C-alpha cells in the first residue's frame, strides 16, 4: 500500500490551489474589486478557510476510507452510485478544463503557433506516466519541484517590487465595496472549493491528522501566495492592465529586471504555472481513474488510465470553443457544478453522518 506523508499532501494541496488559479486570479480580482482586488483575495482566503475546515471535518469522518467508499456508505448503495457517477463527471470536466487552460496558455504565450492539441497530448501523456507510477511517486515528484516553484514565485514578486507603485491600491476599501465582496465567489470557486477533490487521496496519507493539518496549512499558504501575487500585479502593472490581460502574471514576469542583468525571465511564470497545474491535472486524473475503477469494481486503477487519458485529451479539445468563453464557463455552469459538488455535497455528507451518529448513540 503506497502512502504519502503529511508534508507531501500539503504540497499537493498548494499545487492544487495555485494550479489553475494563479494565472486567472489577479484579473478576476481586479475585475470585481478594482483597486481593492487584493482585498477580494483576502476575503476569499477568509471564506475559503471556513470551507476548508469543513472539508477537514469530513476527512476526520472519512477515517481510512476512500472518498467513493465513504460516499457510498453515507448515501447508501443506489443513491451513492449516482452521486459517484456525477462526481466523476465533475472530475472529468475539471481535469479537461485544466488541461485546456494550460494548452491554451502555452500555445498563446510560450509556443506561438504550436497547436494546442499537441501540447495537451504531451501533458496528458506525462500525467499518464505519473498516475501509473502511483500517488507515492506523484507526491515525491511534487516535493522535488516544490522548492523551485516557491523560489520562482518569490523571485517573481520580489524582483518586480522595485517598480511598485503603491498608490495603485489606494483608496483602501472606499469605493465599490459590494463588488469587492461579490468577487470572492468566482475566486473561491476556482481555488478553495476545488480542494474537495483532494479528499480522494486523503486515505493515502499516512496519518489522517496530518491530512487535516495539511489541508488547512496548504490552503492558507496558497491563499497567501495568491494575495501576494495579486497585490504585485496591481501595484506593478496597474489596474487597467491587470484587468485587461488574460494572463496578467505573465505580463508581470515581463517586468522583471535586476540590475539590467536578470531580464526577460517571464519563463519563470510559465515554470510556476506549468508545474502547479501539471500536478493538479495528475491528481484529478488519478482520483478520476480511482473513482471509475471503484464504480466498476476493478482490481486496479491503472486499468482505465489509458482510455481515460485519451478521453481527457478529447475532453479538452471539445470543452471550450475559444478563449472568449472561459469566463462564461467559470461564471456559469462551472460555478453551479462547483457549488453542487463541493459545498452542497459535503454539507449533505456532514448532515447525514451527524444524524446517523446520533441515531447510533440513541440506540
Amino acid at each position: 500500500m503506497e502512502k504519502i506523508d503529511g508534508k507531501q499532501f500539503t504540497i499537493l494541496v498548494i499545487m492544487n490551489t495555485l494550479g489553475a488559479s494563479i494565472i486567472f486570479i489577479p484579473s478576476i480580482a481586479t475585475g470585481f474589486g478594482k483597486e481593492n482586488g487584493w482585498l477580494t483575495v483576502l476575503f476569499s482566503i477568509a471564506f475559503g478557510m471556513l470551507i476548508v475546515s469543513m472539508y477537514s471535518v469530513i476527512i476526520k469522518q472519512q477515517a481510512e476510507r476512500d472518498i467513493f467508499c465513504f460516499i457510498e456508505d453515507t448515501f447508501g448503495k443506489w443513491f451513492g452510485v449516482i452521486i459517484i457517477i456525477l462526481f466523476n463527471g465533475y472530475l472529468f470536466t475539471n481535469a479537461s478544463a485544466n488541461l485546456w487552460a494550460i494548452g491554451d496558455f502555452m500555445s498563446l504565450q510560450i509556443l506561438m503557433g504550436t497547436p494546442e492539441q499537441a501540447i495537451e497530448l504531451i501533458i496528458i501523456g506525462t500525467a499518464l506516466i505519473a498516475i501509473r507510477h502511483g500517488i507515492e511517486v506523484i507526491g515525491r515528484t511534487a516535493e522535488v519541484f516544490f522548492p523551485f516553484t516557491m523560489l520562482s514565485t518569490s523571485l517573481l514578486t520580489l524582483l518586480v517590487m522595485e517598480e511598485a507603485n503603491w498608490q495603485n491600491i489606494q483608496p483602501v476599501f472606499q469605493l465599490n465595496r459590494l463588488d469587492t465582496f461579490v468577487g470572492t465567489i468566482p475566486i473561491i470557486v476556482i481555488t478553495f472549493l476545488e480542494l474537495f477533490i483532494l479528499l480522494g487521496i486523503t486515505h493515502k496519507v499516512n496519518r489522517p491528522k496530518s491530512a487535516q493539518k495539511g489541508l488547512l496549512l496548504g490552503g492558507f499558504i496558497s491563499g497567501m501566495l495568491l494575495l501576494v501575487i495579486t497585490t504585485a500585479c496591481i501595484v506593478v502593472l496597474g489596474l487597467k492592465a491587470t484587468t485587461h490581460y488574460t494572463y496578467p502574471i505573465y505580463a508581470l514576469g515581463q517586468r522583471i529586471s535586476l540590475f539590467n542583468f536578470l531580464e526577460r525571465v517571464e519563463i519563470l511564470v510559465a515554470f510556476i504555472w506549468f508545474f502547479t497545474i501539471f500536478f493538479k491535472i495528475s491528481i484529478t486524473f488519478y482520483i478520476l481513474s480511482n473513482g471509475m475503477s471503484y464504480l466498476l469494481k476493478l482490481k486496479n486503477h491503472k486499468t482505465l488510465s489509458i482510455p481515460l487519458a485519451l478521453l481527457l485529451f478529447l475532453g479538452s479539445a471539445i470543452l471550450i470553443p475559444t478563449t472568449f468563453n472561459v469566463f462564461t464557463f467559470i461564471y456559469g455552469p462551472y460555478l453551479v457544478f462547483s457549488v453542487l459538488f463541493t459545498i452542497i455535497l459535503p454539507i449533505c455528507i456532514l448532515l447525514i453522518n451527524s444524524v446517523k451518529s446520533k441515531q447510533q448513540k440513541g440506540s
Partner: protein
Amino acid sequence: MLNAILFWSISSIFFYKEGKRLWKLKAKKDMIIFTIFMCFAVTIITLHLFGVQFPYLIHVLDFITKPISEPLRQWLNSFHHT
C-alpha cells in the same frame, strides 16, 4: 489522416501493452472493461480527428444548468468592471 494513423498506432501499442499486462494479472473483468473503454475512446477520437464536430461540453453543461447559471452569470457580470 496522418494524425489519425499516428493516433491509431500509438493507441494500438498502448492497447497491446496494457492488454498483455492485464492478461498476466489474469484480471478478466478488467480486461473486458478496458477493451470496451479503449474501443469507445478510440472511436470517438477517430471521429473527432476526421472532423466530426461534437457539441462543446460547456454548451451541453450550460444547457443543463441554464435556469440557474444564466441569472447567476448576469448577476455576477453586473459587478464586473472591464
